[in-house]
């Protein structure tokens, strides 16, 4: 769930000093930084030894790119097999159009709601005298930790006609509560668990914005609101947009929430069709889903290109809330309460009730689920690290077309929703890779395709943070190119490598759709346990695995926070 955050605009990249002599006229293979990262042109000529990608590294990177592109290519082939006329017919089926309309409505609703929740919360926690600001900063960021399928699960059981909430309200005469299924429920749950993307990016922009600009506007006869609209808003707009696009991407590709909320978005219908042996239709829908995702991604990269270099922030006096203090606290409290307290309360209830009365249900939990989850996640992290190394190296050190293409190719995990990767690999496995179908190899491969971008992103940022002068200095002190790499570059990127691996490990643990498609029969993980508990209605069985997943999720958040230096002050 946090995968996009690892690549969020708050990250800091080492940019070699910019005021250096212009005499380092940007050479043809000038390196140092990627144009999409920094708007400044960086002029540091790369040392000779690295001015042409070494063949071995390039080949390795290209192989990785080809491997991870495989599922997608296969999917396209499959769609072609359907035949053009039939594909057209399927695409224009009322059901297809309805799915498209549903997904579009969901994306728009969730994105709009996330902006409406995220931006005010960011403003309140950064720029006002809201009491307990640090507490609220943590509390309203935390929903990111809860996988949305667990949130959806909790909400459905809490809010149903005879749900937990109804039982709580029964003494007051409440006989039945409306179900949360459908667009409304999906929007509510997805907003609660994705608005932090908007919150975090907006908060970073607000924090780094020079508040003297606002003061200048105030002295130029602007009210606080006018100053916000004319000065602050234009400054934070790119950040809000970046966060919103992350929300849109997440919403479009999320499988768990629409499935649990029984809302016919792309992901749910693909899964249902697949299980009903409507494979052609599922493949076609998958392609359409990928196309829509690519559209959003294209929009995102455009916004990123405009990313501002914010001026030095200066904490000046805060906006006094006055009589708005209570409503502000109410907003923070209700958002955090809904998003955090509901699922924790539901899981906690199941856990304790399970432990006392329906003991057998809870005891059905087996330590092997944890071991299975940890095992595949560790394998995935290791493979992802090996795959990421050449790609990140080339991406950080070379700016040619090949380097860019290779890196972009490994980002399929971003562009292709988990449902689609799962589906594509099932097809690929059953038709061409029978020996590894229904084995852990294919499952680990699916995870690697999905989460490789996290490892590449983290490692690439680490490579970029290494001042290109450092390996040069090592060369002048008698080290060969590879010696300089080993003794200087490698120790400096090691934290990034381990950080990336940790992230891959933790996100793999809670991955849902690809696991459902590809886990070998009888191979039970924490995630499959939660899912079967949901689909069979034995909610109590979900408590322990879900709580463990929450802990894992929290850990992955910690990894990101320590990597990004996300400070709460």
């Amino acid at each position: 769930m946090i995968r996009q955050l690892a690549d969020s605009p708050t990250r800091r990249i080492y940019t070699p000093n910019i005021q250096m002599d212009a005499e380092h006229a940007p050479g043809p293979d000038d390196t140092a930084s990627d144009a999409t990262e920094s708007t400044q042109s960086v002029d540091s000529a790369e040392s000779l030894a690295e001015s042409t990608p070494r063949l071995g590294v390039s080949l390795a990177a290209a192989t990785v790119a080809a491997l991870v592109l495989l599922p997608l290519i296969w999917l396209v082939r499959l769609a072609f097999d359907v035949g053009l006329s039939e594909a057209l017919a399927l695409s224009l089926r009322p059901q297809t159009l309805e799915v498209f309309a549903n997904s579009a409505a969901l994306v728009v609703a969730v994105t709009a709601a996330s902006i409406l929740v995220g931006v005010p919360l960011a403003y309140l926690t950064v720029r006002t005298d809201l009491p307990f600001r640090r507490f609220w900063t943590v509390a309203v960021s935390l929903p990111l930790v809860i996988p949305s399928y667990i949130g959806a699960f909790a909400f459905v059981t809490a809010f149903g006609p005879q749900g937990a909430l109804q039982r709580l309200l029964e003494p007051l005469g409440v006989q039945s509560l409306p179900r949360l299924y459908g667009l409304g429920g999906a929007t509510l749950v997805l907003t609660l668990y994705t608005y932090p993307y908007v919150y975090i990016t907006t908060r970073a922009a607000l924090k780094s914005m020079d508040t003297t600009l606002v003061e200048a506007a105030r002295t130029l006869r602007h009210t606080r609101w006018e100053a916000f609209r004319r000065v602050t808003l234009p400054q934070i707009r790119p950040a809000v947009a970046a966060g919103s696009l992350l929300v849109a991407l997440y919403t479009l590709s999320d499988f768990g929430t629409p499935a649990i909320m029984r809302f016919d978005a792309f992901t749910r219908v693909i899964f249902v069709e697949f299980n009903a042996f409507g494979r052609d239709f599922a493949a076609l829908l998958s392609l359409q889903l990928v196309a829509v995702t690519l559209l959003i991604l294209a929009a995102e990269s455009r916004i990123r290109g405009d990313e501002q270099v914010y001026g030095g922030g200066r904490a000046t006096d805060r906006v006094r809330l006055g009589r708005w203090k209570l409503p502000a606290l109410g907003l923070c409290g209700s958002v955090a309460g809904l998003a955090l307290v509901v699922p924790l309360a539901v899981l906690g209830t199941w856990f304790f009730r399970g432990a006392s009365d329906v003991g057998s249900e809870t005891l059905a939990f087996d330590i092997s689920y944890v071991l299975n989850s940890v095992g595949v996640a560790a394998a995935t992290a290791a493979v992802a690290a090996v795959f990421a190394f050449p790609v990140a190296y080339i991406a950080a050190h070379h700016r040619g077309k090949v380097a860019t293409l290779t890196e972009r190719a490994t980002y399929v995990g971003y562009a292709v929703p988990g449902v689609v990767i799962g589906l594509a690999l099932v097809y690929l496995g059953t038709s061409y890779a029978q020996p590894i179908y229904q084995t852990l190899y294919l499952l680990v491969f699916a995870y690697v395709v999905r989460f490789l971008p996290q490892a590449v992103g983290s490692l690439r940022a680490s490579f970029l943070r290494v001042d290109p002068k450092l390996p040069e200095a090592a060369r002048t002190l008698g080290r060969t190119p590879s010696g300089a790499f080993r003794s200087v570059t490698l120790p400096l990127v090691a934290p990034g490598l381990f950080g990336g691996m940790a992230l891959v490990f933790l996100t793999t643990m809670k991955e849902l759709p690809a696991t459902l498609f590809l886990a070998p029969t009888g191979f039970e993980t924490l995630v499959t346990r939660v899912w079967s508990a949901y689909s069979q209605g034995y909610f109590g069985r979900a408590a322990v695995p879900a709580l463990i997943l929450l802990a894992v999720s929290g850990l992955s958040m910690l990894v990101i926070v320590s990597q990004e230096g996300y400070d709460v002050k």
Partner: protein
Amino acid sequence: MSDNTMVNDTRARAAQKSTPATESVLEIDDVSKRFGDETVIENLSLSVEDGEILTLLGPSGCGKTTTLRLVAGLERPDGGEIRLDGDVVSGNGSFRSPEERGVGVVFQEFALFPHLTAGENVAFGLKEWDDDEREARVTELLELVGLSAQRDSYPDELSGGQQQRVALARSLAPEPDVLLLDEPFSNLDVDLRVRMREEVRRILKEAGVTAVSVTHDQEEAMSMSDRVAVVNAGRIEQIGRPEQVFQHPESRFVASFLGHASFLSGTVGHDGVSTALGEIPRERIHGLAPEYEGSAIELLVRPDDLEATPNPDGSGVVASRRYLGPTALYEIELDSGETVSCMHNHDVRLDRGDRVSLSLAAAHDLSWFPEGAETVVDR
């Protein structure tokens, strides 16, 4: 140096040993470098003698840092030859990589390895030394730069001046034949910069190393170096001792880049040059041959060469006054239409619009250029 030096290598060396001041440690011969379509260095030649500190001085973008990187082997030249101790290291298709050159570099931002302590940074280039020798060398160098107490500190725990000294010690440790310093003081604040200049010069002289430094700060170049090479647009305009380059610039660029310069036109007569300041005797003019009689020249006058005194019948008017603290810089507009600058200490006070007369206060002889010429033609 060319072929015959190679042939007579031993003899040449022996001869040079007796006159060490003329032994060239580094020779740059007709070197060019292009980045894409842009020529950064054009046919640059330079030789650096054993034990001397030479500074490449020039504005941003003139190619001085690139020259340094070419010598270090961090860039390949597009033409020409670079020799270290008589061995060709770049040129004619041969290229020796940085680690095989025995050249030390002090980088602009010091490029200290952040994951290693000061001591480990200094030891980095000594991996082939015995443990004992390495330890001893690190101790010796940290002592030389006065940082023995900071041996176990990491770079981010050191001040700017300390980082600078660690960088210097690190590059000196493997006993390089030539040390290159890329804008070594640009990262320090003004006070520290002046102190570190003295300090670095002391350390370099104590270590007896040949050094090439690069800067755009003329004061730094003047105070630190044995010789200064003024670089402009990828070529060397003039090279020589600091005083020589300052007092007798061979081009208008050099004259203007090293301090404030005004030019005063005059006509060469039999006994002197007649200018807007009156007749200046021939012996006050540097190397003015008799053949120049009758031709138009321009004299280089620096602000401290001139003295202005209030005089209602004077030949100039104060056009502006820039107060600099201990001194003030005046622009004087002469009746001839020329403008010259002159410097006075804060005792004297002239106001805008005052009429003044100007006289020559310089004790040294003045440099000159043929009228309209950019450089001094062979005198």
